[in-house]
């Protein structure tokens, strides 16, 4: 963190006390708050927001799990308890627009909260970063951070098939000076990392192979030096899968925000 300027991370409580409203609420998500790897994604995204000068806020300790894993595991009660508590907080602050770096939070808040009285404009950070690039707010200097490197994008199921978002993450990557390569299974045919549907929180059922190992094979076959992800679970699964079978290849797993942010610094 070489930036000399102090990082600004306002909470909604602080803004509300001053009678201010943010342009966007950054929904951090549980992985973004607690998971060591994904905290660096949160930090990279917050650094970008600071640099670009977006008036944002976070909920801080007022944020709780959206309920996605509970709902997919079958626990509708717990999901709705979580959802309603979150909606009360969000509506209490009069939130209009939410950006999150987690496709599961994104899908739940965007598609499932409206049934329970929570209606917001919801963007995944891939879409938001694309908008910033398109608007020229993130300057693409001719840094050589990724020159000569091959990057492949792993489609998150909850962004891709679940919400038809295939191009936004790719156009963010296209803004880097790297070479974009596709895996054999991509876009609508993208192979799951193995974590969705609450699988993240339990061992897989008996089988021949772990799903993330199968996906790691795809990554290696693509010849990429870096896999770009846009989901905390995909990041964990791919990193584990690659480390387990292909440690020697040194393939890096990085989020879109991390790629953009370190390019800026590069």
């Amino acid at each position, binding site marked *: 963190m070489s930036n000399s300027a102090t990082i600004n991370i306002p909470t909604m409580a602080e803004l509300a006390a001053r009678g201010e409203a943010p342009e966007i609420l950054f929904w951090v998500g549980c992985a973004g708050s607690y998971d060591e790897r994904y905290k660096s994604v*949160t930090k990279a995204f917050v650094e970008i927001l600071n640099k670009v000068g977006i008036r944002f806020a976070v909920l801080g300790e007022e944020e709780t799990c959206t309920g996605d894993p509970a709902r997919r595991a079958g626990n509708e009660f717990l999901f709705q308890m979580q959802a*309603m508590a979150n909606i009360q907080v969000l509506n209490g602050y009069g939130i209009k627009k939410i950006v999150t770096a987690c496709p599961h939070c994104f899908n739940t808040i965007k*598609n499932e909260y409206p049934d329970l009285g929570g209606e917001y404009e919801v963007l995944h950070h891939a879409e938001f970063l694309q908008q910033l690039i398109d608007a020229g707010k993130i300057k693409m200097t001719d840094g050589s951070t990724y020159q000569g490197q091959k990057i492949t994008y792993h489609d998150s199921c909850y962004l891709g098939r679940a919400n038809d978002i295939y191009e936004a993450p790719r156009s963010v990557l296209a803004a880097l000076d790297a070479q974009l390569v596709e895996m054999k299974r991509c876009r609508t045919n993208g192979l799951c990392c*193995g974590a969705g*549907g609450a699988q993240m929180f339990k061992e897989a059922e008996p089988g021949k192979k772990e799903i993330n190992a199968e996906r790691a094979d795809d990554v290696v076959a693509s010849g990429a030096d870096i896999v770009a992800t846009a989901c905390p679970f995909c990041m964990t699964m791919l990193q584990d899968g690659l480390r387990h079978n292909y440690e020697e290849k040194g393939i890096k797993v990085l989020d879109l925000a991390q790629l953009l942010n370190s390019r800026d610094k590069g």
Partner: protein
Amino acid sequence: MTTYVAQVIFLLLLAVAGWLLARRIRFIKAAIGLGKPEQRTDHPAARWRNMLLVAFGQRKMFKKPIPALLHLFVYVGFLLINIEVLEIIIDGLAGTHRIFAPYLGHAYTWLLNFFELLAVLVMAACVIFLIRRNIIKVPRFHKPEMRHWPYLDANLILIFEILLVLAILNMNAADQLLQARGVAHYTPTGKLLFSSFFMPPLQGLSTPVLVAMERFFWWFHIAGILAFAVYVTYSKHLHIFMAFPNTWYADLQPKGKMSNMEVVTNEVKMMLGLQPTQEAAPPPEEIGRFGAKDVTDLSWKSLMDAFTCTECGRCTAECPANLTGKKLSPRKIMMDTRDRAEELARLQLTGNGTDDPHTLLDNFISREELHACTTCNACVEACPVLINPLRIILDLRRYLVMEESSAPAEWNAMFQNIETSFNPWKFAPTDRFKWADEMKSNN
């Protein structure tokens, strides 16, 4: 006199086929009707568009271009050759022969040649399909759920279609020879290109034998079509009809959205001391179940999905759980749902509905299968006729957790963590915002 007898036999044949079909359609409607009611007539424009593009236009088939092209031949052949069936039915009832020929003139020749071309393409496609299934052994046709009847069913249909097409071509070949010999009733049709190849072996036959052959193939073809129509309703091949309503009624929302359980919403609102949005719903007549244990707990659309499934296995071929050797196969979910719906509908029809030891869960679909799903929507995306196996899986999971509290231990721990720490791990809620402190102190 003989024509008169033939006409009566023809009429009887039609009537029997019609009666069998009507009975079977009533049964299938009853079986789909076992599902729970659900309103699915919103956004009619989008629904017609889906049906037109996906069912009529075969759009999703073209993700795999080679089978798509072969399937297109069979599909177009099926749709268009059946125009000829209209003539055959009129001929059969009126005792005429090729009644359209004099009216259409040259157009008739063109039309018949076009039908013959389609017939040859259908035959070629079916032969290649048989090779793919039985010699190349495309993996998705050889999963465990495809043993025995489903395997035989698929082959029978292909062989049946080849026989029907051969009957048309042989019939036309005999017909042309009889025309050339000037036999009465055999109206000139003009030269029919493809059936001409079938003429040489027939050339040496006497006229009465040729007439008998022509008649045999004519009867074989029409009786075959009627038998096929009835057979289809018992087979996985029902998609030729069901694809149309099924795409019309398909989901219009983003695939990631799970349906909301209103019953739960009302209870949660009461627990939280919030006003239910709707006025308190009248107490349900029966105590409903949370989630699904049997086909009666699923939406009728899930049951329509099951009757639409043609067991192509594109879903299973894309399923990450199945690809890595887990028991889950989305195709099996659909086959089990159909088998169970048929079983229950039969029991209810015979009045033995109360004496039924089976349920969809456990007797057909195991918990291990349900627990293996990553909800990645690959199966939903892969289906050429917009079937949603994921919804059934999730409805069954809801039953397991909410009625039986029987989730894997790790999931129970995750539930508990969310309840007590508001995150799926065991991290303290007070640590949620620590990342911000870390960032600030690094600066």
